[in-house]
């Protein structure tokens, strides 16, 4: 009887999870269906299934944009930002979590405090700064802004995860005479991999969807990101929503792929037992 009860419970859990899954998949299907509708059909039946296989919206995107370049640019910026952000954040997080030094808490609070300011406030001062250094209309501006703005939350997440690492193992490896570098590569990195991957997924998706930063800092067509390019679809004289949705769908495929690849690491990295 007990197993039957458990089975019943598990079935219920399955149902609940499945409903949430449907809700999560819905936007993707909505975009996919809408992208296959001509404008009029979309106006008439925004929610229905597409009546024909209509791929002109994707054709338009291909003809209109140099997609390869746009995706390449965005990937490059996101990749560079990720490398920059992690190389700066991991040592800082480790220091906050496991090293003892004066003013540690003060620095920690100061870092978290920088998260509490709305990003819109920074646009104009930072743009003026960038234009004085001469970095506007150059990838470095976007990479620096992205990386720097993600540092506090990255450090925050990694610190709270690293705090959970067992001190005994760290002490043991220190006793063995391991240097900072070795501790870092042999212990800290492998153990915090799930956290690193998780936070990178958060950052990467945020950056990928960020319209304002690349829009403001970059101008040349050959530097544009996908998100900015897609935003040019709508203008005062056209309201081709299916085309916009096709663009949005296309631009969200890479982050989805990145996520799917990375999430398997979240699982693998979790093997804390391996360290023992």
């Amino acid at each position, binding site marked *: 009887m007990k197993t039957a009860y458990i089975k019943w419970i598990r079935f219920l859990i399955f149902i609940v999870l499945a409903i949430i899954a449907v809700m999560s998949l819905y936007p993707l299907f909505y975009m996919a269906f809408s992208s296959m509708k001509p404008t009029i059909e979309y106006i008439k039946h925004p929610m229905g299934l597409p009546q024909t296989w209509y791929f002109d919206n994707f054709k338009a995107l291909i003809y209109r944009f140099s997609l390869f370049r746009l995706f390449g640019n965005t990937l490059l910026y996101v990749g560079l930002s990720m490398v920059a952000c992690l190389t700066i954040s991991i040592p800082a997080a480790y220091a906050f979590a496991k090293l003892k030094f004066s003013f540690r808490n003060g620095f920690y*609070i100061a870092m978290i405090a920088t998260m509490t300011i709305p990003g819109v406030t920074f646009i104009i001062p930072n743009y003026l700064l960038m234009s004085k250094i001469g970095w506007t209309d150059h990838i470095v501006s976007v990479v620096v802004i992205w990386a720097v*703005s993600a540092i506090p939350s990255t450090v925050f997440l990694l610190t709270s995860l690293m705090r959970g690492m067992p001190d005994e193992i760290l002490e043991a490896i220190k006793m063995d005479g391991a240097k900072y570098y070795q501790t870092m590569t042999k212990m800290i990195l492998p153990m915090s991999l799930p956290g690193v991957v998780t936070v990178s997924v958060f950052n990467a998706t945020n950056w990928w969807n960020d319209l304002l930063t690349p829009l403001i800092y970059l101008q040349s067509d050959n530097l544009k990101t996908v998100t900015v390019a897609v935003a040019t679809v709508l203008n005062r004289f056209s309201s081709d929503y299916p085309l916009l949705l096709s663009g949005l769908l296309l631009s969200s495929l890479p982050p989805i792929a990145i996520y799917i690849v990375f999430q398997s690491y979240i699982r693998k990295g979790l093997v*804390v037992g391996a360290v023992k």
Partner: protein
Amino acid sequence: MSLKQERWVGLFSLLPAFLLLAIFVGYPMFNTFFHSFTKWDGVTSVFIGWDNFQSILTNGDLPLMLRNNLIFLLSVPGILLISLTVSVLLHEEVRGWRFFRSVYYLPAILSSVVIGFLAKSMFTNNGIVNTFLDKIGLGHFTVDWLNTVPTEFMILILCFYWQTLGQGTLIFLSGLSSISNELFDAAKIDGTSWRQKLFYIVIPSLYPAIFYFTIVNVIYVFVGLFGLVYSITGGGPGYETTPIDYMIYIQAFRSGNMGYASALSVFLFFIVMFITWIQLKISNRLEQ
């Protein structure tokens, strides 16, 4: 590593992060503080003392904006609870849980434009929500969702949840999987009930993750929600759904009152900093 070395290594590890933050966050912050005392159109600024702050406090928009921020703030525990529950349910590893786990993060990947679009077309007068209500015989519950304030908040919060659930489950699942299986097995042998397991094993070991999630999302509802507000309600009707960060955007980029916008940012900064500080205090106490 001796203590003395540790101190230097520690400070040295922070150096690059703080150097960059000083330039690209510290400088604009200083700039904003300075300009909050000026009338500034981006080119010329005139020092006007406390006028901006005075007008924030007296022009009548503030209570409304604070109310709106408070509503969003109060929605954070909801998503925390939902994310936790869903993570624990996922951790039961029922059929298809891997698939579910992957799928839940999708809405977070999509831009708020899509979510906004979808929410708007679902909740129009003849959208699927009202049609559905009609069909199941609850026709008298149909509402003009996008034109009344409480339902607008409901939709905004729904979209916020929609986009945040994936983040929550991701964080909590990785927290959960670091609880060793032995601990679970031991609990099983002890005959602890599911609920006891939840409250004595799962939640305590998730404390760091819970705090991270809460703090980040509390900050987010104050400084990051404006994308959703922009694409769903545009802050209206009136300023009924306008939170402070959206007002900053309006003032800076629609009205060009950048001095006022700066003052509002400073104001918001102190509010959020205060709330975050309280949370950190609580978290420190609980961790001890």
